[in-house]
């Protein structure tokens, strides 16, 4: 595997995971930006534990994920069912707090960051192959569970909350419990991505965890389609990778081109490229071997709007 391919695939996986971590709480309409703070906290935690205490990678990964889940859970007890805007403020606050602490406390390396995070195994190419296997294993695992969730009772309850909270409550759904569950899960994914990111880049600094990062994840989610988990898989490799293949003469304009593309896609497909109806159709085609069946469930239709 070439180095370029390794970095491209590995960073794509991180963007997929992080966009999914934004997708999950958005199932009930919350923009949970705190996940980027979780990513930073766990990345720094893993770097320190590996460098100073020689913790093995599996332990660091587990601890980093748990750390994310715990912080997410603690915060979710307060904002589990808060309105979207309140959750946005929570995210901003945690990002600023994390960034400030990292920049000002010496053990975190200040604005310079922490570097020379060891490899999982000694061989460089072996380390890369192993990392790709690990990262995509977790992408698969996370995707599998999200898919199960989306199809479960809980997932349908989340869709109902998204469409109309009052109806959901009248059906006996507890929005706070679902919110807490989704926020905790999202933060756990954030924490896990942080550890993986630290081991992929082998160096981290406060500049890696910025609002720009959220911007890219939001773009991936909304361009890909926020009503299903599949849009992320399509948009992540294209959107973040696209400026890399622009010709040299257009390099200085890559952000403008990216922005224009984003605006055009949003104007043409405000729900994103892959919608729930589309996924349903594909599934029906598969199920009924070629027969086209339009989904009739009202909740699905509404949720896709």
């Amino acid at each position, binding site marked *: 595997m070439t180095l370029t391919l390794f970095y491209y695939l590995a960073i794509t996986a991180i963007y997929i995971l992080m966009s999914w971590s934004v997708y999950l709480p958005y199932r009930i309409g919350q923009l949970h930006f705190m996940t980027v703070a979780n990513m930073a906290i766990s990345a720094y935690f893993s770097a320190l534990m590996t460098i100073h205490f020689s913790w093995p990678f599996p332990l660091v990964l587990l601890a980093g994920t748990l750390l994310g889940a715990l912080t997410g859970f603690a915060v979710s007890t307060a904002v589990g069912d808060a309105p979207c805007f309140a959750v946005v403020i929570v995210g901003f606050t945690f990002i600023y707090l994390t960034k400030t602490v990292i920049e000002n406390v010496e053990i975190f390396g200040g604005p310079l960051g922490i570097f020379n995070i060891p490899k999982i195994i000694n061989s460089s190419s072996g380390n890369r192959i192993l990392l790709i296997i690990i990262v995509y294993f977790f992408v698969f695992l996370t995707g599998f569970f999200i898919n199960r969730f989306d199809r479960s009772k809980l997932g349908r309850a989340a869709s109902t*909350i998204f469409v109309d909270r009052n109806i959901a409550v009248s059906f006996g759904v507890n929005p706070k419990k679902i919110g807490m569950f989704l926020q905790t899960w999202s933060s756990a994914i954030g924490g896990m991505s942080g550890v993986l990111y630290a081991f992929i880049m082998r160096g981290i600094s406060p500049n890696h965890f910025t609002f720009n990062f959220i911007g890219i994840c*939001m773009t991936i989610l*909304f361009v890909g389609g926020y009503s299903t988990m599949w849009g992320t898989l399509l948009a992540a490799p294209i959107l973040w990778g696209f400026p890399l293949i622009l010709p040299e003469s257009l390099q200085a304009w890559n952000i403008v081109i990216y922005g224009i593309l984003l605006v055009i896609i949003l104007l043409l497909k405000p729900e994103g490229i892959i919608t729930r109806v589309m996924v349903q159709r594909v599934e029906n085609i598969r199920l009924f071997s070629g027969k086209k069946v339009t989904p009739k469930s009202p909740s699905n239709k509404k949720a896709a709007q």
Partner: protein
Amino acid sequence: MNVLTAQFFNGLAIGSIYVLLATGFNLLLLVARIIHFAFPVAVVFSMYISWILITLTGNVLAGIAGGIVSAVLINMLTAPMFQHIMNKRESVDINTTMVLSMGLGMIITDILSHTFNQGFPIAFPDTLTGNDKGALISSGLISISRGQILTLAVGVVFVVILFQLLYKSRIGRAFRAIAEDPNEAKLVGIPLLKTGLKSYALTGLLGGVTAVLMSVLLGSASAGLGDQLGHKVLAVSIIAGLGNLTGGLIVGLLLGILEALIQGYFAGSWSNAISFAVMLIVILAKPRGIFGLKLRFQEI
């Protein structure tokens, strides 16, 4: 005491910028149902247009006029894009419009960062800022410039006028009716196009005036200025209660004072973290903002 008073006035200076931007942001929300996350970026773009015209013509008035016209034009061009997205949805949705706004902000910031003045920050001449005359009021550490007084005064006056206009006048009610439901507004006889255009022009006008006032107060601008202000303006609007003009005025000023006090008495690099932590506590206590939402949002 002198230091405390000085910091209080310093806080009002940055606070009045938050007020103007939050008012523009809220106005877009009220009359066009747009969550324009990048509104500050569009304002900074108008500051650049002002600067170009002043540099080319040497005439401050041309610059002021240009800034206002450009803000109105940007708004006229972009507002339909937002509405196109929303037309396909039945209710206000902060998230898709937020991403569109981010996309537009990205384009504008990047154009500013390497085209105008070769990407370097721009500085406005003293004829506009009045910096050559020094501070208007100066006593010990207290220094109040013309720009500071003008910005604060205009901020307050705008909020009062807009409040009257939106809630007490016929045209204001028409603006809000169209924003809420264009079809019903049409049924009750409101001319859609004409009123819609007027509402866009009004918000553009506010953006333009904000751009001019920020040029006077800050004296310079850089491509990243809009992004620097974006989060705070969004936060101010959320804390106050989205769409709440008076709330935006009060919270904007309070945030400015809070920041000045943190920077003055504690470590400056902690000012964002502490300001947001305070705002977090407020929003946890009042999830719909201190002064309440002024719009019916999708219940999420």
